[in-house]
């Protein structure tokens, strides 16, 4: 009996230890590298102080939310890491505004995201807080409802459904909306003349995929493109796509539009090759990241077209620097989620720099001031995912979509 109890205790201990381990490793990721600043920032978040020869420095607290564990963790960690690089750069500039980022895990679930939001409010206490997130759509809709009621400014790097911003004047997106991406895809196909018969395969259990696909099909028909086959699958953990591919093949589709994430897409490419079906594959921004999958055979993606606002093999100075810092810190190439996160921090920073009397504002006044500035028409930001990005009154971003083609394992802008 004694022995049994001991074993149970050990197991319980091991489990709680591993939980703690999980927490602390998350904690490490969220802490901001400039450790010397962290202490001072912590203690006087609201107050201004005299640093660097008499200029007032204001610290704005940024509360990030996204999945850093669970099945969407790769997206959350990317938005977190991208934002951290931007925050380090901004704070190193010694400008009038400093950012302090605290990142909370929402495990891609709406209720966890709301708890994360509440703990961020506790963390900020009375200091002005800006919400950065969420990474994925469903949690973002839940949190944006809360921030709208509580009056916190919110900027999401990647939650792309129109539901996120619908009817909320305080919520803005850094990424394209889903319908916007679908329409842009149809227009690109019309103007490039690729594909005479189009097949569409999408995930009808996912609002991102369905949103793009429906707008694409509707707009393609308006433009007179022939959508020969439409096929769906229920969830991204589906593994067999031969039935869907056969539907496209039988309909004679020479271009297959895949508004889906890269994990199922990599299986579709592999299975299409196995069945000797070689149409042009065309994807949305969810396809970004496929080339960096461990062990992925890049030749499968040769000729793949995708719309992504960010190209990690871009040659401009800012992209090169970002990619280098990201790779040194985390050992992988940044994807567009990371770049969107980076741009979000600069958008918040540049907007804050333009607000007069920011030092005396509470979160409500800051929210109103930032929302007015974003929709004012004069405010624009240059970033990694676009230049002179502006925001519409709906909260939607306006920037040019970029189509890239995979050639020899890298993106080539079309």
């Amino acid at each position, binding site marked *: 009996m004694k022995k*049994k*109890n001991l*074993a*149970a205790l*050990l*197991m319980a201990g*091991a*489990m709680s230890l*591993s939980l703690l*381990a*999980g927490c602390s*490793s998350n904690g490490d990721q969220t802490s901001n590298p400039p450790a010397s600043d962290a202490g001072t920032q912590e203690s006087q978040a609201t107050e201004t102080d005299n640093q660097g020869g008499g200029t007032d420095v204001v610290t704005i607290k940024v509360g990030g939310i996204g999945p850093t*564990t*669970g*099945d969407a*963790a*790769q997206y959350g*960690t990317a938005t977190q890491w991208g934002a951290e690089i931007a925050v380090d750069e901004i704070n190193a500039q010694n400008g009038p505004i400093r950012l302090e980022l605290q990142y909370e895990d929402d495990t891609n679930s709406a209720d966890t995201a709301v708890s994360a939001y509440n703990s961020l409010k506790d963390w900020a206490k009375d200091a002005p807080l800006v919400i950065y997130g969420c990474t994925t759509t469903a949690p973002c809709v839940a949190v944006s409802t809360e921030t709208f009621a509580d009056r916190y400014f919110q900027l999401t790097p990647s939650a792309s459904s129109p539901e996120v911003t619908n009817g909320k004047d305080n919520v803005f997106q850094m990424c394209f909306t889903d319908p916007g991406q679908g329409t842009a895809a149809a227009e690109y196909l019309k103007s490039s003349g690729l594909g005479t018969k189009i097949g569409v395969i999408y995930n*009808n259990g996912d609002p991102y995929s369905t949103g793009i696909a429906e707008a694409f099909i509707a707009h393609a028909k308006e433009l007179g493109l022939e959508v020969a086959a439409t*096929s*769906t*699958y*229920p*969830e991204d*953990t589906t*593994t*067999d796509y*031969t*039935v*869907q591919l*056969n539907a496209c093949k039988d309909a004679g589709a020479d271009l297959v539009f895949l508004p889906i994430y*890269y*994990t199922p897409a*990599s*299986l579709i490419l*592999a299975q299409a*090759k*196995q*069945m*000797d079906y070689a149409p042009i594959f065309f994807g949305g921004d969810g396809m970004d*990241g496929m080339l*960096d*999958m*461990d*062990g*992925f*055979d890049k030749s499968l993606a040769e000729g793949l077209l995708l719309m992504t606002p960010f190209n990690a093999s871009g040659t401009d100075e800012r992209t090169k620097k970002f990619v280098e810092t990201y790779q040194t810190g985390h050992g*992988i190439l940044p994807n567009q989620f990371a770049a969107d996160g980076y741009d979000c921090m600069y958008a918040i920073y540049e907007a804050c720099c333009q607000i007069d009397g920011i030092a005396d504002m509470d979160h409500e006044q800051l929210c109103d001031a930032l929302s007015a500035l974003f929709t004012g028409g004069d405010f624009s930001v240059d970033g990694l995912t676009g230049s002179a990005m502006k925001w519409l009154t709906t909260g939607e971003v306006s920037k040019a979509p970029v189509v890239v083609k995979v050639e020899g394992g890298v993106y080539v802008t079309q």
Partner: protein
Amino acid sequence: MSFLNNVITGISLGSIYAIIALGYTMVYGIAKMLNFAHGDIIMVGAYMCFFAMGSFNLPPAAGVLLAVVVCTVLGIVIERLAYKPLRSAPSLAVLITAIGVSYLLQNGAQILWGAATKTFTPIVSTAPEARLVLVPGQLSISYVAILSIVCCIVVMIALTLFTGQTKMGKAMRACSEDKGAAQLMGIDVNTTISVTFAIGSALAAIAGVLMCSAYPVLSPTTGSLPGIRAFTAAVFGGIGSIPGALLGGILLGVIETFAKTISTELSDAVVFAVLIIVLLVRPAGLLGKYVPEKV
């Protein structure tokens, strides 16, 4: 021809379900518990093989062997630490523990190996030409599918011989019939249950490697959905019955494939509707033993 092609796809998918379902069914039959962490052992097995082949450049056979060894040890350790202390606890407590172990394995894998999806290197070639052509241009079977089906048959025969002929197999059947009586007859129940977990986990490792060879993506949550499908297959065939797991697995694979050709939206609904109908007619599953409750 597309009918026959679908049958072949269904059987090869079903063979993998069957191998996983065997693990569920054996553990249920002997320890009378649902081991929901079984699906995650599949994932651990696949990761072991992935790293053996990818990082250490071992041959596929060594990768499979490593996966089997690691999963066997893991299965025994989990049973000893998490389930054995609860042997006399209510079955609900054990069920919750199993779900907890499942989360522990998933999140542990995420900490160790990251959340990003990895592409598995198949243990046999999946190139378009790597297939056995039956009718040129119309009907062919990929080598991976053949391997899955052969593995499933071999495993079935081996298990049937093991439970029927060996001393340990007999002890297992005795435990599944009446644990208390078996103990009185001098059977070491704890060892028997450990061996059951070891066999179930070894099978999970094989299933993991086969599954990831057929559908080469690997992430910490890879095992959960096939785990649930295989659990369904085990219930379908009659949980606790070894031939039932085979029949349930293969039928589930075939029904799933055909349901998809009717409607991709409704495929899961069709699969589970069939399950409900079967359970209404035969509450113990297709080959399960119906034991009326004595009052």
